[in-house]
């Protein structure tokens, strides 16, 4: 088992199971295959053109530098889902992490997205991320529900920000989850101080 308790097996709603592990450079070719297998419509909502070797090189460089931390789900020897935390390692938003999530069409609706998102949210908290964001198109209803279950709430709405394959304009939502209170509770716990006892 590597750091953070991965790899681990996640049992899905249909009784099947997948192995979720931390992504490494060795996963590069399988990741490219996974993204190339997504439909044009699915890839439209992704920020980058994830089918090119150039994207993969940049992605692996970010993994190596710690600017990205990624989980991949595998079944039958193939990657069937991926969740990544992207963050900046310096600057005024270094406490913020962006989560991106992709699941193969045949695995959707079975809890894999939730399992991946849960795992990456926990990694983010451990890495000291205090606020997480996810960019979701209005039509991504299942993904929005997944993030809402994890405590994310719609914080901003960009009207007509996305053009779909048919040329229709869609709204883009920015979902956010401020988790700074979690570690604030720990900070209070280690204060070794009470205003009403112990003096």
């Amino acid at each position, binding site marked *: 088992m590597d750091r*953070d308790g991965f790899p681990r097996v996640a049992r899905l709603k249909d009784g099947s199971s997948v192995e979720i592990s931390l992504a490494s450079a060795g996963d590069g070719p399988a990741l490219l295959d996974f993204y190339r297998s997504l439909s044009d419509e699915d890839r439209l909502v992704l920020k980058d053109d994830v089918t090119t070797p150039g994207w993969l090189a940049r992605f692996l460089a970010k993994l190596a530098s710690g600017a990205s931390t990624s989980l991949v789900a595998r079944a039958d020897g193939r990657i069937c889902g991926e969740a990544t935390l992207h963050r900046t390692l310096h600057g005024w938003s270094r406490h913020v992490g962006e989560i991106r999530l992709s699941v193969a069409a045949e695995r959707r609706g079975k809890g894999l997205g939730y399992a991946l998102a849960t795992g990456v949210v926990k990694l983010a908290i*451990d890495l000291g991320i205090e606020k997480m964001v996810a960019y979701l198109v209005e039509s991504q209803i299942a993904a929005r529900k997944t993030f809402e279950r994890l405590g994310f709430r719609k914080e901003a709405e960009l009207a007509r920000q996305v053009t779909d394959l048919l040329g229709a304009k869609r709204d883009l939502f920015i979902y956010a989850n401020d988790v700074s209170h979690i570690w604030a509770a720990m900070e209070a716990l280690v204060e070794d101080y009470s205003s009403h006892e112990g003096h």
Partner: protein
Amino acid sequence: MARTEIRVGGLGGQGIILCGSIIGKAAAIYSGRHAALIQAFGPEARGSACSAQVIVADEAIGYPYVRHPDILVLLSQDAFVQFSPQLKPDGLVLYENELVQLGGKLPTTARSFGIPATRFAEELGRRLVLNIVMAGFFTGATNLLSIDAVEKAVIDSVPKGTESLNLKALMKGYEYGRGLVAPT
């Protein structure tokens, strides 16, 4: 009748009381033994002297104060100066070796082990978990409690959402402690 007296000493803000509380919980709730905890801290929220007295025993504890500790867990130089004279001659000192210099003032029969717990906590991502690294170090170096019991006590004690990093901190300290006391 086995009775072990433990003093955890350091500064406010280092999580001294929580460290003592985890040791006590692991003994009393998750190991079926008896434990007592007495906490003392100064008037400031951070930086003042702070200590926890913990007794772990196989029978009911009639006197809950630590007079001559079997084990000292030290996270500040002031705590070392204050508490080391009370240590039993064959006692054990577990200390944060980047914050505490022992300086040869311990009885020759006493044993001591140091750990760079603050650095480990920072490497894990949060200095806050320094006390949990020390709780793990205590567990690994003393064999007084099982790691399973301490793990349960940590999960029971820390805020929801912080368990994962706190358990990593616990295991970091535990493995370091086991490595130091393992027979060569």
